[in-house]
Each structure stands twice: as structure tokens, then as C-alpha cells.
């Protein structure tokens, strides 16, 4: 089959590789119909995630049609399914607590050693995301092996187009859990750093959970515009002093909850971030947490900080004084995707959540390497890219005309 493979920093290629096969009776194989490029794929593209190996197949936001079924899978050939990026066994203590991304069994014994060394505990498995999380092949390919197919896949009702449901695989539940972790109360003002796909879904979710105001922070005009379209007030961080602006806009209190949807590759103007960049490139430190620091420093006393943004290593200058003295609460973690998919699918069906407004491009798998470059270099106009193995090379479709109309 054809597949997008990683070969090193800024080197993604389309290779011909063997087709996946059923390994265990609970597995299925799906034929990919849509697979998105994620913001966290940029961390791989930029070489920030250790334990990638040349030849690894990328892609953790996948859906398709079931084409092969293991003896113990409840799925049937021909069903359309969305696949959570978290691989979860369904039977360990953590899966029982619905903390699916903390699954104890989904990272094979050999690869889980690495995270145990790095973080002191074995990480759960994830599709298409380095050997630290299991070394599973991703779905930016024609076919994908799905383990534990009785736990993860979401069967999609007929008539719902791919674009409407694909994001159940990661960014929609991630934005939702980010807002849930912010413990929003009616009347709250919520600040969201980063208006990429996760940030945009966090904004939508925050309003659905009763936020009175959402203030969104970014520096890409197009992304800020999308946030505004959802009803958020917006801050361009190159135009304003974000901390001062948040303080003033909330009447000298600060936001009740702050959500960092940026993660380790934050762009920012502060001297701390420039130092972090130097360190990241010299491997002295790995994370560039400008948004994270700003969130902690801006949050009101007794407020909540939610961190869906991905971090992977160590951080300098964690503002522990502000964090402790203000009595903040912080929640974070990889998304427990399976916990949220049924509820979110229902909300999509009922028209409560719009999932398609942020899609900017459809492209073929063969155009994948170009799309990675655009996703990296032109974040303003490429707000979300969906690869469709069914499309011909060169058949790039832009959807800029599908701009969300504010309610």
C-alpha cells in the first residue's frame, strides 16, 4: 500500500510499504477514507518527539471502512468507523476508570520501557506517534490495523459525511476535555491560548458548558477570525500585552479558567521563549512554554489551568510561586478519547457542534509531503488538512469558502 512515512526532521515521504495484517483476534483492518494532519504531527515533523524511527507511518486522526475482521471483533465488514488515536485495552484499571489514554496494556512491553525510563511510568499506546507510545503504524496510508476494535472504534451512522465525524478521533474530544478540565461554571470568563483546531474546539466546548465569555489568543489572523466566528473575543499577542489585556478585560480579576492549547512549540515574544528556543535547538531543554507560563500568571486567584497542549520534556522557570500563592488548580493529560465519543457524536448529529468550519484543505495521500510543508509554513491559511487516499495526486481542494457564519 501507499503510506506517508517519516524519515527525519522535515522529511516526510510517500512510500510503498506492506499492507497491515490482523495480528490478534480483536483486530480489524480498515481502508482509510479520511485522515487528518494534526498540530501534534508538527512536533514529529520538527523532530521534537524522541523515538521516531525512519520509516514510521504517520497519522493518528483516522477513519475508514472495515475491510477485514478478526474472529473476536464485534465490527462487521463495510461499517464506517472513526478510530480514537488512543489505543486502549478496555480491561485494565485505568480503562475501567475511563482514563483511556492511561491504559496500562496498550503499549507493548518492549516499547513501554522507554517511557518508563523517561517519565517513571509506562505511557499508554497511541497510533502513529513514535515508539514511546508503542510504535503503532499510523493511518496516513491506504490501510490501518486497529487493535482492540471492541473498545475504540466509533461506528458512524449512514449519511454523515467524513468531515463531520473525523475529528472524533482526536481534536474534538481533546478540545472538549480541555474545557471539561477547566471546570467551567456559568458566568465564567475563559481564556484560550492557541486557535488551532484544538483551541477552536475548546472555545466551542467552553460556550456549550456555560462560559459567559471566551477570550482567544493567537497571532494568525485567519485563526483569530475563526475564533471570533465562534463568538470569542480575540487577542493578537503581537499587538497587545496579553496579561495586561486579560486583566483589564476581566475588570482587574483575571480569567476564571485558562486553557493552554499550544504546547511545546509555542510562538512568543518573551525573552524566556527565545532562551527556550535556543535550548530546544541545542537539546538543553525541550519545551518552549511561553503560553503555559502566561496562562498561570494571568489566571485569577483560585482559578483553573487546563493543559491539553502537548509537552514532552523538562521546563525551565515554571512559575511555581504564582501557581501556589494564587491557589490554582491544574489539570492536563492526553485525551481519554473513548470516554467522550458517544456523547460528542450525538451532539454533532443534533447540530450542537460544528466540526467542519475549520477544514481548509482536502488533498490526496500523494500530496501529503507538500501538505506537511504547508501545515508547517502557512498556518494562517492551512487551518486543517484532511488527506483522502481516494483522491488523485494534485487534486487539492480548498474549502476557504466554507467560512463559519457567526450565529
Amino acid at each position, binding site marked *: 500500500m501507499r*503510506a506517508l512515512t517519516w524519515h527525519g526532521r522535515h522529511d516526510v515521504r510517500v512510500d510503498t510499504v*506492506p*499492507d497491515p495484517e490482523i495480528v490478534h483476534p480483536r483486530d480489524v483492518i480498515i481502508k482509510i477514507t479520511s485522515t487528518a494532519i494534526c498540530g501534534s504531527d508538527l512536533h514529529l515533523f520538527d523532530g521534537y518527539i524522541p523515538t521516531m524511527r*525512519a520509516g514510521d507511518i504517520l497519522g493518528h486522526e483516522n477513519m475508514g471502512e472495515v475491510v477485514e475482521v478478526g474472529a473476536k471483533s464485534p465490527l462487521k465488514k463495510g461499517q464506517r468507523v472513526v478510530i480514537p488515536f488512543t489505543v486502549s*485495552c478496555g480491561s485494565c*484499571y485505568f480503562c475501567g476508570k475511563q482514563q483511556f489514554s492511561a491504559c496500562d496494556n496498550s503499549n507493548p512491553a518492549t516499547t513501554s*520501557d522507554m517511557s518508563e525510563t523517561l517519565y517513571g511510568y509506562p505511557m499508554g499506546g497511541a497510533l502513529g506517534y513514535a515508539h514511546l507510545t508503542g510504535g503503532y503504524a499510523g493511518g496516513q496510508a491506504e490501510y490501518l*490495523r486497529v487493535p482492540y476494535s471492541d473498545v475504540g472504534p466509533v461506528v458512524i451512522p449512514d449519511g454523515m459525511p467524513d468531515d463531520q465525524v473525523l475529528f472524533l478521533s482526536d481534536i474534538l474530544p481533546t478540545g472538549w476535555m480541555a474545557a471539561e478540565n477547566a471546570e467551567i461554571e456559568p458566568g465564567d470568563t475563559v481564556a484560550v491560548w492557541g486557535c488551532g483546531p484544538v483551541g477552536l474546539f475548546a472555545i466551542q466546548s467552553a460556550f456549550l458548558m456555560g462560559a459567559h465569555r471566551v477570550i482567544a489568543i493567537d497571532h494568525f489572523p485567519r485563526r483569530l477570525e475563526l475564533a471570533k466566528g465562534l463568538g470569542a473575543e480575540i487577542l493578537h499577542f503581537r499587538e497587545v500585552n496579553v496579561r495586561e489585556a486579560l486583566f483589564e478585560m476581566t475588570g482587574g480579576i483575571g480569567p476564571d479558567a485558562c486553557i493552554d492549547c499550544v504546547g511545546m512549540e509555542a510562538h512568543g515574544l518573551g525573552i524566556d521563549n527565545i532562551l527556550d528556543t535556543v535550548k530546544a535547538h541545542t537539546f538543553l531543554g525541550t519545551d518552549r512554554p511561553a503560553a503555559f507560563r502566561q496562562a498561570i500568571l494571568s489566571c485569577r486567584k483560585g482559578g483553573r489551568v487546563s493543559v491539553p497542549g502537548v509537552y514532552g520534556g523538562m521546563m525551565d522557570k515554571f512559575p511555581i510561586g504564582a501557581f501556589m500563592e494564587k491557589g490554582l488548580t491544574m489539570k492536563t493529560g492526553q485525551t481519554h478519547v473513548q470516554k467522550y465519543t458517544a456523547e460528542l457524536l450525538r451532539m454533532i448529529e443534533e447540530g450542537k457542534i460544528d466540526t467542519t468550519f475549520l477544514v481548509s484543505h482536502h488533498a490526496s495521500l500523494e500530496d501529503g509531503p507538500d501538505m506537511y510543508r504547508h501545515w508547517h509554513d502557512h498556518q494562517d491559511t492551512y487551518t486543517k488538512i484532511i488527506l483522502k487516499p481516494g483522491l488523485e495526486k494534485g487534486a487539492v481542494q480548498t474549502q476557504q469558502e466554507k467560512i463559519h457564519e457567526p450565529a
Partner: protein
Amino acid sequence: MTGFLLSGDEDERGDTLQRTLIGAAAMAAAAGVALYFGRKRSETAGEPLLSDAPASTLRGSRKPDPALIGRTVTINRNAQELYDFWRKFENLSQFMDNVRAVETLDNSRSRWTIAAPAGTEIEFVSRITEDQPGRVIAWESEEGATIRNAGRVEFIDAAPGRGTMVRATITYDPPAGTVGRAIAKVLQREPNVQARRDLRRFKQLMETGEVTSSASPSGRRSEEPTKQYL
């Protein structure tokens, strides 16, 4: 039979000598010789410990011989079920990477076949030294084993509803001679890695019914989609 069996098979995974050595010895040692533990305890007698922790976590001058390996994993199953599976030593090859086969000889003795360097195998006979149904199994190799080893696995109830803590303790006495020295050198560094991987596979098998595999295609030509590579 206590020497290397020179089977002449090429190692199909192209493992390095070292890796196989690690596995062979650690697996052979899959968990503590009663005699050996007895000796260890008597050596530190008279110095009471304050910590309620397994011996394998001691440090400084309290650190036991490096040949003592301990590892605990919590498994979401009851102790009896886990004990029953382990007590059928034939089952061990399902999750112990380098155990090729275990054959039950009688109620207390079993013959173990272990993968060894360069496609060879080691065999030895093991004898159960302690057997408390649902609680403890301990065994040790009989006289003359290439790697004198002993194992002990305890099944300890975790908090109500949280399953069972399975604690494996392994000790071994590497053989003399050149090969013995090579094995000993490797053993001092890596058997704990092998032990925790094997326990993790045991947990996976008991909780999910399968040993987790991320086997899948890649752009690396040497790899097959149904085999697990690191």
C-alpha cells in the same frame, strides 16, 4: 542436561549475542532460591530494617547482591486465578520472552528450555520449593544447572477491587568459565529489564487475553506487518 545445546539454528531475529544472553539468563531465573534468600537474610541479621519495602529496593550498604532482582506489577484479576495460570509452568512461555518451553515432569519438577546465544538453547530441571495455593510459588534449579537460578512469585491482594500485586523475585548464580563470565557480566545489568517486560506481558495476557503487539507495516524493508519490532 546442564550445558548449552548447540542446535545450530540461526537466530531468526538477528539478536545480538548480548541480547540473547540477557534474555536467556534472566528468563532462566524467572523469580528466588530458598537457600539463596536464606543466606542473604542471615548476612544482614542483627541490623533491623525500618522500611516496609521489598529487599530489591534497598540501597547503599543495604543493597543486596546485584543477582537479586525484584519487580511488582498490579493485575486486575484475583490472586487464585493468577496463581493457577502461573502454576501451570507450561504457560510461562506465553509471556516470558526467552522461555521456549517448560515441560512438567512430576508434581514438583519441570524441565525448562531457554533461548541462549547464537540460536542455541539451555535446558535445566527446576524443582518447586514452596507452594501455597493462591499465594506463593517458589522454585529452584536442580544441581548442575548451567545457570543456577531460583524464582519466587507472590500473589498479594491489592486494595479491595484493585486486583492483585504480583511480585516476582529472581536470583541466579552464573556458571563458571568464559561463557559463565559473559553471562554474569550481562546479568548484572539487564535482567531487571527482562523481568519487568515479562511481568508486563503476564499482565497483558491476564487482563486482555493477548500479549500486546504493535506489529504493523513500516517503510523499513526488513520488517513484516505481523511481527513485533522495537
